[in-house]
């Protein structure tokens, strides 16, 4: 049996996935990236190998992706997360023609064809608004975790606006609202809608009329998926674990590359 690995080293989390030659996912792992990408990549790969009951020498080809992709000497090749998310998304949802990937430090909207090839993409600018980091900071300012924030947002009865596009200023806005007596639930809902507005501005010309899948760690947040679906007026396709789609795409590309050797 042949085995292929994808390692996706993101700014917040490192994900690894092992695929066999029949395209079955046989091992996965998600670790915090921390400051040492190389160590995080190796840790994540070892954990995925353990999950798959394999050793590193069993692997036939490894592709690394994500912002730390060039830090993994064990990888045979590096591919951007844009191409990897496209490929992984198409594998899970063949009908998808657009991908919204909200990761730790950026958000991307990718138009794909039926083979999972990238036709075009747009990314947010060098600003944390509309990213996983933004959500983490906002949850921190409400003194809750991301899961609690998602649950709270559902209970919101009123719409409050978080208007700043800057994470630091948005945090001050949240603190002011909180100090002014606004309920946490309303603020949580306002935070999701703020990100949804930002991502919609980036996404609408690409996703219009298409089946859209959402990937990346932020897609685990039900509150975010709800707010974005509402704003885009479309149901988003979300995989069981949207955070590993980049690593899945990398492993699928690893298989193709190996077969073309």
């Amino acid at each position, binding site marked *: 049996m042949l085995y292929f690995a994808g390692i996706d080293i993101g700014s917040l989390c490192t994900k690894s996935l092992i695929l066999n030659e029949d395209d079955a996912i046989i091992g996965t792992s998600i670790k915090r990236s921390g400051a040492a990408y190389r160590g995080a990549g190796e840790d994540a790969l070892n954990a995925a190998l353990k999950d798959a009951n394999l050793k590193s020498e069993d692997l036939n080809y490894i592709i690394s992706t994500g912002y730390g992709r060039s830090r993994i000497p064990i990888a045979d090749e590096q*591919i951007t997360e844009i191409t990897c998310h496209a490929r992984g998304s198409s594998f899970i949802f063949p009908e998808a023609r657009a991908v919204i990937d909200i990761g730790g430090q950026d958000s991307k909207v990718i138009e794909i064809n039926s083979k999972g090839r990238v036709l075009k993409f747009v*990314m947010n600018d060098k600003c944390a608004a509309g990213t996983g980091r933004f959500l983490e900071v906002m949850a921190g300012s409400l003194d809750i975790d991301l899961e609690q924030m998602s649950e709270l947002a559902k209970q919101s009865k009123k719409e409050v606006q978080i208007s700043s596009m800057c994470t630091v200023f948005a945090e001050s806005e949240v603190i002011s609202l909180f100090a002014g007596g606004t309920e946490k639930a309303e603020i949580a809902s306002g935070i999701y809608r703020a990100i949804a507005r930002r991502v919609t501005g980036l996404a609408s010309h690409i996703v219009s009329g298409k089946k859209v899948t959402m990937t990346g760690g932020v897609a685990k947040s039900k509150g975010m998926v709800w707010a974005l679906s509402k704003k885009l007026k479309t149901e988003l396709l979300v995989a069981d674990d949207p955070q590993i789609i980049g690593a899945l795409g990398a492993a699928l590309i690893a298989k193709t590359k190996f077969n073309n050797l």
Partner: protein
Amino acid sequence: MSEYKLNRLETTKLIGNIVDKHWASLRHAKENGEKVAWCSGPVFAFPYAMDMKCHFMAGYSAYAGGRGAAQQLLEIAEEDGELIDACSYHKLHMGMAAAMRKNIPVRKDVILPLPDLLISGRLCPEMSHYAEGLYRKMGVRVTGVDVPPPHQKSEIKYFEKYVERQIRESLIPALEEVCGKPFNYDRLTEILIVLKETAMLRNECWEYLKLKPSPWTLWDYGVSIAPVFYLMGSPEAVPYYKKLKAELADRAAKKIAALEPEKSRVYWDGWLPWAFLGKFSRIMCKLGMVPLVGRYPWEFFPHPETIDTEGDPVASFVKQVYSNGGQAKDNMPSLNLPVIQNWVEDYKIDGLIMFSSKSCRMWNLGHNDFIAAIERQNGIPGVVIEGDMVDTRMNSFAQIETRLEALAEMIEARKE
């Protein structure tokens, strides 16, 4: 180790000394009893004709950026009250003015002398504020030449008259008053004669960019712009381009590519990232990606064959800015998109890079629209990358690298 090999041109290694000499002559002008002008926009030929030493706003910014001296000046400007996201070219000059006023030591090779005249050639609204800001800091005389962008061909003749009249009735009298002598029309003609010869040689060099693989790149041309612009009329201009043309002809004959192997050919829109050309070059080399053509670097006298060196030099100069120049090409809705689409064919372009400057909105409007329109007609992908011409803080190279790599992957996927 990269699988690609960059073959640097010998000729472009000469440009550093040529531009250093220009800026040194400006620094020492006052000691030599010469008059000095600072100028934005394309009208520095007029102070040159009066034997003034003249600075050019974007050229100086590129020079300071290329020498790694921009950041200090930007920070001095901010300490003096400028906003972080104001035009970095404007701010760089405000930093220089503040350094002069407050005696803040800055690198000797980028010091500018206090001008006798500020010429505000207004290509964008920010340039009038630039002159106004400098006037407040330095208190020297300011004269403006408004160079509005045309939107249709029928407007061009009015705009030409408008600009010509400002030059004759405002700029030339100001120069005569500052210099205490009549305007030297013959010298302006001489400058145009040299410019014509230089730019015609440059156009022959442009033809080599159409070869596949190309013997030189847009970056090579970028560092060679000064002789066809702010070094116009200088004795080094024609020899530089003659040497460059000969080197390119030699490379073409021997089939030597600028980058070996040349994997993809790209169009570059917007300002050149002067302070980061080396960084961009390294990233793009690693991807086998060669930049070849762009709207901004093609602004500088693209039709020199039409320069009239027999008639009125003022009218001839203005015609080069409008009828035969970049102003119309870059700004007319009916022209700019077809120009890029034709370039995509002529230069065999595989992908588009739209450089969106964080501090200059003039060059980054409609980038995604352009990509979509060109993709529809020419079937090639494009990306927008964000950064700045000279401000380090506005460039995130991890983001830039990812976008450029993704462009390379898209180009590759379309070829399969």
